[in-house]
């Protein structure tokens, strides 16, 4: 196979990377890979690092299970993804080192989520229920929903 770039030299380097945006596959000769700066990206990317670290399995992994989404640590190690907001808390003692190695850090700095004030989903649900109640002219039900909405400090004119 010839190099994708120069189309002259035989391709000696196969480069594949799964980016969030696309899967990149290149067959290059040494000199073209060099020109693209690909040889120096040999330093492992966080994704590659994750994939390598997830291979370190333990017999207990099947027993460590998230109480909210029921993802086990074993499954996490297979797919490399969390199942819900609580997985991290559950797996923390076992993946601390993994996170540290991926990020070269153990502590978040930067923007924070404002906790406790948002009632977004519940309010949204109540509003949807209210809409339906009004559609079928169930006014008592609607009044009850309005009361609940008031508890969230939401006035509902609908």
């Amino acid at each position, binding site marked *: 196979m010839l190099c994708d*770039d*120069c189309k002259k030299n035989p391709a000696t380097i196969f480069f594949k*990377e799964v*980016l*969030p*945006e*696309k*899967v*990149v596959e*290149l067959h290059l000769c040494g000199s*073209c890979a*060099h*020109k*693209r*700066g*690909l*040889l*120096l*990206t040999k*330093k492992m*990317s*966080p*994704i590659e690092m*994750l994939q390598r670290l997830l291979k370190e399995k333990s017999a207990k992994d099947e027993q460590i299970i998230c109480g*909210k*989404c*029921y*993802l086990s640590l074993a499954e996490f190690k297979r*797919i*490399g*993804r*969390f*199942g*819900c*907001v609580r997985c*991290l*808390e559950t797996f*923390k003692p076992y*993946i601390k080192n*993994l*996170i540290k190695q*991926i*990020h*070269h*850090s*153990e*502590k*978040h*700095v*930067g*923007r*924070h*989520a*404002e*906790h406790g*004030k*948002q009632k*977004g*989903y519940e309010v*949204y649900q109540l509003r949807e229920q209210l809409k339906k109640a009004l559609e079928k002219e169930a006014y008592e039900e609607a009044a009850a929903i309005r009361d609940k909405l008031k508890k969230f400090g939401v006035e509902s004119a609908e």
Partner: protein
Amino acid sequence: MLNKIRWLVSGNGQHSEYADIVVSSRVRIARNVSQFNFDVKLKPADAERLLQFLRTTIGSLIKGEYIDIRQISALERESLLECHLISPAFLRKEKPTGLYISEDGDISIMLNEEDHLRIQALAAGMNIQQIADKIFSFEDSIGAELDFSFDETYGFITSCPTNLGTGFRGSVLLHLPGLVFTNEVEKVLKGALQIGMAVRGIYGEGSEIKGSLFQISNQHTLGLREEDLLQTITKLTSMIVDIEKKARDVIFSKARHEFEDKIFRSIAILRSARIISTDEVLNLLSAVRFGVGTGILKEVNLDVVNEIMLVSRPANIQLFYNEILEEHERDVRRADFIRSRLSRKTA
């Protein structure tokens, strides 16, 4: 659909400095809503409920257009990808997904991607700070409505551990024909790697002036403040721009005629071709971009270069003519399109 590329061609010729070198800037943040499971554990019915919820909430905060990915054609989906508004992973999803695009076109939000929300902003030229500001001000307003998954130690909790912390990815796309010519790409990129930036030279077809597009972005999301990441990217970019400019001086002292020849031949081919492939366009445009940036080509502006770069892509060119076209027919129409764009300015 093609008005979605406003983010890249909205300069009306008024581009930021070095917009020929810094082609575009991009910022994205990943966020999840605590009440709902993440992608791998999200049931289709819950995905549907989440989608409706997010759509309603976002719609109440910013004016824009909602696109139900299931409702549009394969061609339109492909076009969104070509315009960098969605990811390939997003296209492969079987669960219900949606895309929200703000009215001015500079914020786009993928709903039910790997994370519940992937909020991104794009702009032509070196505008990473401005678009980051836009993203964060939008995040402030939506963060008051949604309970984002957050951990005091590890920051925003994302589906993939590699995004923990800020969930922030900033990147710039650089056009560096000078550095490719002087063989300094490796030296420069090595420096970038050392300060935690990932560098990819994946866009161009070939070496030399043909492709010469490189993307730099932050690798890590934990333990680094967003503003520090932005500053690092900004500093690194301006450093690379300086070296690129010096390299261009070298080109002009050593190979001026060769480069001018390449630039004028490239624009001549673009203006004359009757059949042209996407790859050929990308290579020729690189020379043209270089010519525009160095003032050698005066009658073409970067908006046109950027527009041709995006509209030339296979799905976009079909959408532009609103027809399903075979490859050969696309190559013909692409040439038509480019001739019409390049003649307008020079008549």
